[in-house]
């Protein structure tokens, strides 16, 4: 059984846009991600694939320090996340926010600039223009002043992408951008991902549709509470690996997790 996931020495390349070392994340002491060891390839589009509950969203959130890590280390471009926030763009799941919020599309995109604008400072004309530019790139310029609840699911997703674009990051972490979007939006997202890649950016995208993985992505990361396999799609995206990812063998891992909860007395 080949294990392309583990570097022989445990050394991580300092220039990797994202390098995860021995990451374990637990909710209520029950590990949901075990010993993830991963170096993202620079300038590639990477699909994160795995069944429901396999920890895909948790992996992204742990990298961004949105959920506490039980152990392990994450570095972006060789540095801790806090020091390189400006080089990392994040697209949360569309369902994670309240689309009834009183705000229009342009104002949502402006949020991508908040870190750059800084505390207490106001949003200026140049920021608005930048946000507008990003909306144009996702084909949403005409909806700039539209209240976000009036947008379709696909349009909302494009607004989210524009918000990430405006950050002008070097690596993007996207949580299910393809869920619930129309065919036109799906094409627009793929187009956008390719543009990002052409500009040397890296994107890690949580993806559900196994059929489109070979078409849309260069690399794949197969996840089911642990890293099952990772590497170029042509090598790693095999039936065997998919069976290992989606198959029932993980029951054991889950049972050990249960034991840890009981043993921990929580």
């Amino acid at each position, binding site marked *: 059984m080949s294990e392309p996931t583990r570097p022989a020495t445990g050394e991580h390349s300092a220039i990797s846009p994202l390098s995860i070392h021995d990451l374990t994340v637990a909710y209520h002491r029950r590990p949901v991600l075990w010993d993830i060891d991963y170096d993202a390839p620079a300038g590639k589009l990477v699909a994160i694939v795995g069944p429901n509950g396999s920890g895909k969203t948790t992996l992204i959130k742990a990298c*961004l320090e949105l959920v506490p890590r039980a152990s392990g280390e994450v570095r972006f471009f060789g540095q801790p996340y806090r020091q390189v926030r400006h080089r990392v763009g994040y697209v949360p799941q569309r369902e994670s926010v309240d689309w009834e919020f*009183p705000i229009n599309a342009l104002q949502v995109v402006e*949020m991508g600039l908040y870190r750059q*604008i800084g505390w*207490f400072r106001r949003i200026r004309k140049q920021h608005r223009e930048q946000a507008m530019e990003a909306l144009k790139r996702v084909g949403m310029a005409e909806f700039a002043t539209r209240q976000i609840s009036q947008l379709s699911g696909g349009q909302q997703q494009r607004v989210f992408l524009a918000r990430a674009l405006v950050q002008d990051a070097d690596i993007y972490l996207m949580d299910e951008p393809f869920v619930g979007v129309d065919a036109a939006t799906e094409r627009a997202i793929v187009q956008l991902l390719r543009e990002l890649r052409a500009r040397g950016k890296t994107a890690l995208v949580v993806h559900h549709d196994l059929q489109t993985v070979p078409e849309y992505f260069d690399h794949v990361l197969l996840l089911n509470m642990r890293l099952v396999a990772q590497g170029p799609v042509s090598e790693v995206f095999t039936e065997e690996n998919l069976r290992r990812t989606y198959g029932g063998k993980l029951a054991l891992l889950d049972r050990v997790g249960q034991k840890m909860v009981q043993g921990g007395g929580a």
Partner: protein
Amino acid sequence: MIGEAARLLSDWSTVDTWIVLIAALAAMACALPGVYLLLRRQSMLGDALSHTVLPGIVLAFLASQSLRSVGWLDSRTLHAAQHAILFGGALISGLLTALLTQWVQRRGRVEASAALGVVYTSLFALGLLLLRLWADNVHIDPDCVLFGAVENIVISAEQRASVAWFTATVLGLNLLLMLLFYKELRISTFDPALATSLGIPAQWMQLGLVAVTAATLVTAFEIVGSILVVAMLIVPAATARLCTDRLGTMIAMSLAVAAASAVLGHAAALTLPALIFQPLGFDEVRDANTAGMMAVAAGGLLVLAALLSPRYGWISRALHQMRLSIRIAAEDLLGRLYRQAEEQSRPQEAEVIDHLGQPLLIRWLAAQGLKRKGYVRRVQGHWLLTDRGHQAAARVVRAHRLWESYLAAHQQELPDDQLHFSAHRAEHFIDRNLQAELAKELQRPAQDPHGRDIPGENGNGGS
């Protein structure tokens, strides 16, 4: 009735002005954090905080008493210092509420509202216990706690000025904080995960909001009471939300609603009880509690907004629905006339059009509208299409027949009569762009599945 009300209001004095001023300041101060609580769907937190600040208040009160007894504070500075100490006590209880709730939620693995319920009742009980233990030292009048005592405050000129200044300061501070943290509050309310990933810790913003809310609540307590303060927190924000889709406008409007409810509430407190009860023979009923009437006034404004708001209001929705019905009826009429004209030139199987239960009034309005636009004219009791009307009608029929063709091509299992019914509904929502797309996808069909000609894009002949 109006004359009577005017007579009652003609007794308006400086005291009334002070009452309205103080009440308005307090209500506006509450409305600001209320906007964010509402948008975060945490209105319950406001209610909880209004109770959990009690132990903080009691402890702060006791602290200030003992400071006086050891001689650190003389009774002259006590009054000023008391406010600050009460403030601190409330802040601490407020933060404790938020942190305990998070802790219970995590440890007890229950949902946020359940955790809040546990913490809120426990802290309130603790407050009552403290009150009971040291009841001798704390003079708290239950009526005052529940309903506020703005009427009592304004009796003394010195006290009313100091309360007004203090409330104005709290309002000013809230305004300042909301302006300074406008961006940060907005992003941490809308998308906490992104905010945190950008280095704007959403959790700290939440704690800040809780602290501001708690401090504002204690300020408003003595004015509007602990129950009605919840109305001041949430109702202006909810009213404003109905009227606008912009956050800045919503904040400004909630301030206006808060101020208006103070004015209307006090005016109502002076007039309504007399107007309602005296004719019923209850002569002794002269006026009502201002805070209570403020809550009623705010509620009234909310109902008004629910009726009249441009987007969410019942009336505008009903009007929108009616305009849509008229348009559909007009398009149905155009379609019918087009088909009639078509049959006369080349008789074929008639398409059955029902009115979909459109009321006579709607049909009449639709016909009048078409006449005004010059689409139809009436000749010897019959409607006839003009040239322009013919073009407009052709577009409707084109939409209908394109849609039928599209459905026929894609849903073989649908029976023909259902095809027609579906198209009859859909034709009103298929604009020119969609028509062009349908035509393109179907490779510009000349006829629909029933063998009838599909009018061209410009309304004449086949395409």
